[in-house]
């Protein structure tokens, strides 16, 4: 039993590293193989995750609209998304004749690569992280900004006015909402004093920031959720692909697997955003701890850290999915007003408040 408890992901990784080093005795080759293993395990995690999120989205939509949702393929409709994927795989991947073919085929790849790179510093469980670099959250916000170029590229190269309009809308939206996301991340960095993901999680050992940080952190949590919903182009901020106005926005011309890649990126982004919100504000893999309540904290530690992380992440995903069926889509002017006249000034003042709080030590 004790042995089982001691096995963690990092010990497994160390064991693989040791056995590979003994076997091959070549540093370069060992590192290369380990990178391939890490990438493969990320893929093995992400594809079922996207299947699950697709299923979850339909079920949540059905739940919000008091209907059953998918219920024919597989038990409770759970294989519906597999059927959809097979359909997408068998479809013809069309490339419009007038399009810029090189960029048209490159765009979905860039979008997917950008959101996969963002997964690197996310701490999935205790000692389970691909890359714990010193600039964790800055890395995330910088690399995620590559994704918008994929969207702009898709809109331009399709040679379709709907695509171009969708791409422009999405570009304006992502660039402006990035500011609010950044400022609300900064408020946690100010409190923690570090941008390293593991430090941010460890700083919440005696309570999550959303409880320790009083009202300012609560405000920045709400701003983060709103702004990041806008950043990943989800309803009610899905102007970039507003069906009624722009058919499907920037991916109007995409079909088959290329379209599936945009879908994949959308779901991975949803997961990443929720994971970051869970890490920054809700403690990541840290169990629910209250100050010095030793016994209570010990009881909470019995649940594995990965379950805590995934539970928090999926709770936030559930909230973001509910937005889709709760609010009507914003107009472009309303969208920009919301960011520039409300969210940005509020988050700027909020960062000042958090800074004062951190300097005076008013948080717990």
């Amino acid at each position, binding site marked *: 039993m004790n042995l089982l408890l001691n096995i963690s992901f990092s010990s497994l990784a160390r064991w693989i590293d040791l056995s590979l080093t003994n076997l091959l005795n070549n540093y370069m080759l060992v590192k290369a193989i380990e990178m391939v293993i890490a990438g493969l395990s990320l893929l093995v995690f992400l594809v079922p995750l996207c299947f699950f999120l697709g299923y979850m989205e339909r079920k949540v939509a059905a739940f919000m609209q008091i209907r059953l949702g998918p219920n024919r393929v597989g038990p409770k409709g759970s294989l519906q998304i597999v059927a959809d994927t097979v359909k997408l795989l068998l479809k013809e991947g069309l490339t419009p004749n007038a399009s*810029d073919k*090189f960029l048209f085929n490159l765009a979905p790849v860039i979008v997917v690569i950008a959101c996969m790179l963002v997964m690197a510093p996310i701490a999935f469980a205790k000692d389970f992280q691909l890359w714990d670099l010193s600039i964790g959250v800055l890395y995330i916000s910088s*690399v995620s900004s*590559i994704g*918008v*170029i994929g969207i*702009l590229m898709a809109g331009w190269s399709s040679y379709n006015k709907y695509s171009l309009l969708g791409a422009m809308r999405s*570009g304006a939206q992502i660039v402006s909402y990035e500011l609010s996301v950044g400022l609300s991340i900064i408020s946690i960095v100010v409190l923690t004093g570090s941008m390293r993901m593991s430090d941010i999680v460890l700083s919440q050992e005696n309570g999550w920031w959303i409880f320790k940080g009083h009202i300012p952190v609560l405000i920045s949590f709400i701003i983060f959720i709103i702004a990041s919903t806008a950043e990943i182009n989800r309803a009610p901020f899905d102007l970039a692909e507003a069906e009624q106005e722009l058919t499907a926005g920037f991916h109007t011309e995409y079909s088959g697997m290329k379209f599936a890649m945009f879908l994949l990126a959308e779901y991975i982004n949803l997961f990443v955003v929720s994971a970051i919100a869970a890490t920054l504000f809700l403690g990541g893999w840290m169990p629910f701890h209250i100050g010095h309540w030793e016994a209570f904290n010990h009881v909470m530690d019995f649940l594995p850290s990965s379950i805590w992380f995934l539970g928090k992440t999926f709770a936030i995903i559930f909230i973001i999915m509910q937005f889709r069926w709760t609010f009507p889509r914003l107009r472009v002017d309303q969208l920009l007003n919301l960011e520039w006249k409300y969210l940005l000034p509020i988050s700027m003042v909020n960062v000042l408040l958090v800074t004062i709080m951190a300097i005076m030590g008013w948080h717990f």
Partner: protein
Amino acid sequence: MNASTIIFYILAATIISGALLAVTSRKIFRSAVFLLFSLIGIAGLYFFIDYEFIAAVQIIVYVGGIIVLIIFSVFLTHGSGEDMKRPTIGRAAFAALAAIFGGVLTMFLISQHTFFPSGKTGIEPSPENIGSQMLSTTEHGYILPFEVVSMLLLAAMIGCIVIAIKIKVPPHKILPETDEDGIEIFDQKQTTLENKQIQL
């Protein structure tokens, strides 16, 4: 040849080929995309030498900012979808000559220069060190340039707002009531002119 050399050459090839394609491509949007690859390659080079902070800033500023700005201006430019005109042979020849001369000069200077390893031990480029160095008022502190750049950015921001702002003039000021003659019409012209100046 070990792994780090291979990675370095891959990065270098990305940067140089991206830059070359950005200059030679005849589609303006493709040029922007190739420039993007070149800039990402430079960020990769920073990651390669463990300057993670600089790498992230490189991506935020150049990829998330400059390239998006370039792409937006391409979107808003008339006729940017067509191929650009092929440059004349004379111009192309001179451009090639200038590029080759610059390259050779740089190579020559680098090969002539002997690099001495500095005796000082390096400081770890962690965000904490960079931040405290940036804001320190002691020797080698960067607080003055930091503040000067901040003032410059503030001035630029205010300039942007002044250019973009629209002062709403109430309609009765633009169009005065026209129950009288001659002079009123002149006034009207003048006020619209003033209004335009305010808008500009």
